[in-house]
């Protein structure tokens, strides 16, 4: 790997290599980022490095909802104004931010940290599913909202969770699978349109 950036000085090629490991960063972008770092003041570079160390040292998974937090349990799980009887299950921590931005949901979350992907060999044991079942056993949960992504893996995961949760006597719901705002009906695919009909309601 070192040979690939052989023309750059060793510390530079090492930095390029590290950037190259990041998701979505190709060799060209990695080199561009590395040379950007070379040009910025040392204080900025130090602050970036410290920020990286800080997330690794201070951020843990919330022992209740598995969200990333610097305080365990996290602020959401500790908030007594929120409805602790409703849990919204999401794939990734970033999904919580998206739901929070709507301001519509006042319950708690549970982060799976992935989805079931049978062809990649990723199954239930690779996700935070047993932790979710523990929360069910602890009691007090009346509704679980499955908010996985509306794609094959997300839906398979939701169907699997429904199998596990329904026998526990808890209400299991999923987000309405409908038409995207701003779209034209004629461009809707068959699955979205089919689900939108299933989920129609009184106006």
């Amino acid at each position, binding site marked *: 790997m070192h040979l690939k950036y052989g023309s750059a000085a060793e510390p530079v090629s090492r930095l390029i290599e590290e950037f190259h490991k990041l998701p*979505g960063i190709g060799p060209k972008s990695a080199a561009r980022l590395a040379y950007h770092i070379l040009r910025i003041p040392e204080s900025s570079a130090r602050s970036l490095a410290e920020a990286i160390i800080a997330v690794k040292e201070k951020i843990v998974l919330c022992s209740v909802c598995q969200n990333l937090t610097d305080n365990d349990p996290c602020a959401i799980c500790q908030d007594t104004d929120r409805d602790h009887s409703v849990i919204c299950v999401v794939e990734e921590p970033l999904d919580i931010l998206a739901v929070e931005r709507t301001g519509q949901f006042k319950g708690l979350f549970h982060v799976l940290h992935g989805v*079931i992907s*049978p*062809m*990649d*060999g990723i*199954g*239930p044991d690779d996700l935070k599913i047993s932790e979710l079942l523990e929360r069910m056993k602890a009691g007090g949960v009346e509704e679980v909202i499955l908010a996985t992504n509306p*794609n*094959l893996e997300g*839906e*398979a995961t939701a*169907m*699997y969770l429904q*199998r596990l949760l329904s*026998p526990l006597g808890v209400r299991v719901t999923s987000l309405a699978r409908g038409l*995207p705002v*701003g*779209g034209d009906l004629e*461009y*809707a*695919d*068959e*699955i*979205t349109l*089919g689900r939108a009909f299933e989920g129609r309601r009184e106006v």
Partner: protein
Amino acid sequence: MPTLKTYKTEAIVLKHIDLGEADRILTLYTPNQGKLRAVARGVRRMKSRLGGHVEPLINCSLMLSHGRALEVVSQGQTIESFLPIRNDLKLTVQALYLVELTDAFTSERIENYSVYKLLLDSLRLLAKVRNAEILFRYFELQLLGYVGYEPQLYKCLNCKATIEPVQNFFSTSGGGILCPNCAHTEPVVKPISVDALKVVRLLQRGDFITANRLRLSADLSRELERIMQGYIRYLLEREIKSTRFRDRLKREDTEIAADLGKF
């Protein structure tokens, strides 16, 4: 500006992997070019017009153009979405098994129309048949035939004698049947019953309709599965990954049934 040559093709989406912020790389199986990989831009955005048409298991019509390394999808329209499969976890996982086998046994840009037809027909059947196990065996035997691994079921691999209706042996390493006298000539062999051999021959001939009418005992069904899984694992030198989750669902179902039986 150079004009990009676009062309239209049908395809079945085998799988997708995320690329960058909002794109995906699709693995497609097409009627005239075999397996292809193509970039679909922006499909992970909620407002993408393309996203819902290029999900795995969907049979769609696509406009593609030649990109630098991969094809690029410019438009897509669903032909068949197999919604009954998508709405059922077990069927979804079973369909993924068919798709994963297709992916594992084919190479890019090698036309094999029979494979395309087999996969499409099998997805259609999966939504309807009551015995998916026999459909899997049918699919496996047909697929292996189309890609050059058709097992020899009529003559002994070693002595070439016609196979008699007694317990014979299936050789995964040799890809066919050995008579009782020759069973020792190959390193990996499994006994195959008279009934199992009959079913395998029927399926190899492509007679799904007759095979689907058979009522297989649980033992016979397991024997057939073991023989085919062994052969496939030998050919691929690995497991088919989706079987792990499929078997887990099966196991959980039996546990649930056993629990219910207690009351």
